[in-house]
């Protein structure tokens, strides 16, 4: 019976997290267009419902009714599979993110922990699955049989290799501090107020994580794989209808996961800012912090121009990776000297 209840709990959590993530992704597109609009001193979508709030649904309906085209020269199986790989990778990361502490269902003694899975190698899992998402982009560009698509996916591959290294090394700093790959443990160690957050102990790693994270999710200023001006949309050039929508959703879901991991690693996860505010549920804190990151991702998109391809490579290999290594060495030295 115990096992049966556990199964129900896991299924419910999966459904809730999946639905929540999809809603966040849908409204993230709305938020992005709204924020970019206001940055450019215009309104953004405001025709569909109050404040344009129904815009995501109208977009979804539109995408659904578009013609689903597979180019004649395309490798059909891979072509169909690529967007699925992308979206699955982006969503699966959320399996290990802790959203809140735990609560007891009233009237029973059943404790619900607010995370789908508490994996002891959660961080490794995140990086493994996150880079799986790039396969979707690479395969999608390659299989469409289009030179722009191929160029876009080649750039994606090169960018992934150069930035994943710096991203991994930057995060090792946090690992040294927490001595654990378990995300719940990392969050627990950051409890008791904002002065305990890893962002104060690892500021360089935090900045590196943000920059490399942006490169990892192919957002401006690192949106090389889909540079509109030179690649005419890049890897997803041959995609239409729901397949394109899947790539689009994957990009935004990936953005949410990047933000969620940043919150977990550096901003104390679901922990309140000061312990006195602990009466507010952890989920609220988590979503609030996540929103700050998502807003920053959109905000910087409206600010910075795209880097040139060679500049991206230069920044990755000559600046970010050495910085990450120096940060790693210093962190290790300090920790080992302290005992």
């Amino acid at each position: 019976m115990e096992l049966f209840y556990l199964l129900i709990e896991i299924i419910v959590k999966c459904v809730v997290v999946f639905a929540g993530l999809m809603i966040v992704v849908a409204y993230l597109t709305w938020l992005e267009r709204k924020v970019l609009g206001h940055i450019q001193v215009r309104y953004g979508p405001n025709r569909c419902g109050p404040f344009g709030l129904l815009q995501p649904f109208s977009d979804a309906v539109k995408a659904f009714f578009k013609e689903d085209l597979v180019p004649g020269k395309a490798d059909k199986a891979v072509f169909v599979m690529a967007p699925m790989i992308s979206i699955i990778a982006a969503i699966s990361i959320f399996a290990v993110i802790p959203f809140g502490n735990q609560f007891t269902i009233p009237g029973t003694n059943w404790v619900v922990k607010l995370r789908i899975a508490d994996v002891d190698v959660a961080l490794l899992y995140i990086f493994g699955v996150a880079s799986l998402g790039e396969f979707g982009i690479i395969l999608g560009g390659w299989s469409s049989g289009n030179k722009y698509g191929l160029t876009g996916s080649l750039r994606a591959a090169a960018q992934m290799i150069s930035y994943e290294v710096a991203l991994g090394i930057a995060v090792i700093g946090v690992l040294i501090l927490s001595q654990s790959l378990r995300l719940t443990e990392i969050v627990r160690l950051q409890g008791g107020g904002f002065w305990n957050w890893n962002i104060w102990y690892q500021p360089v790693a935090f900045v590196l994580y943000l920059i490399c994270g942006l490169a990892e999710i192919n957002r401006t200023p690192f949106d090389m794989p889909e540079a509109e001006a030179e690649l005419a949309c890049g890897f997803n050039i041959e995609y239409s209808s729901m397949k394109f929508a899947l790539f689009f959703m994957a990009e935004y879901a990936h953005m949410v996961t990047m933000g969620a991991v940043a919150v977990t690693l550096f901003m104390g996860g679901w922990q309140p800012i000061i312990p006195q505010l602990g009466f507010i549920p952890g989920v609220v804190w988590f979503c609030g912090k996540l929103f700050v990151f998502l807003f920053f991702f959109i905000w910087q998109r409206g600010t910075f121009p795209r880097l040139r391809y060679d500049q991206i490579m230069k920044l990755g290999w000559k600046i970010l990776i050495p910085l990450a290594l120096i940060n790693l060495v210093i962190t290790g030295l300090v920790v080992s000297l302290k005992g």
Partner: protein
Amino acid sequence: MIIPLLKGLKVTLRYFFSKPITVQYPEEKIPPAPRWRGIQYFEKDERGKTKCVACGLCMIVCPSQCIYIETAEDEEGKRYPLTYELDAGRCIFCGFCEEACPVKAIFMGKNYEWVEGDRKGYIMTTEKLLEEKKVNP
């Protein structure tokens, strides 16, 4: 290297909180300029009919030849346009007809919103031109 980036972020944040300058067209409209040349209208005389005496000067001066006039005389011996057709679909809104008119009958209006499904709809007769006067106070 970092400081200019932060400055850029500050600038965009300032614009984010400023009021959008968009004119939301169908609801809000910018009034046309004083010298705006829109769709023509006919000025009425004291009897409520057109002032036009069908002299044909506008027909001659029109560079796109969009005006067609048939002249007639009424019982008092006064000339009036039996048919006056202005094809707004061909009109280039140069305003020469307004300049050429000796009796100040035709004027360039302010209206610029006119959509039709076929070209025949754009032919303006005397009645339509008089009707257009209502939107041009």
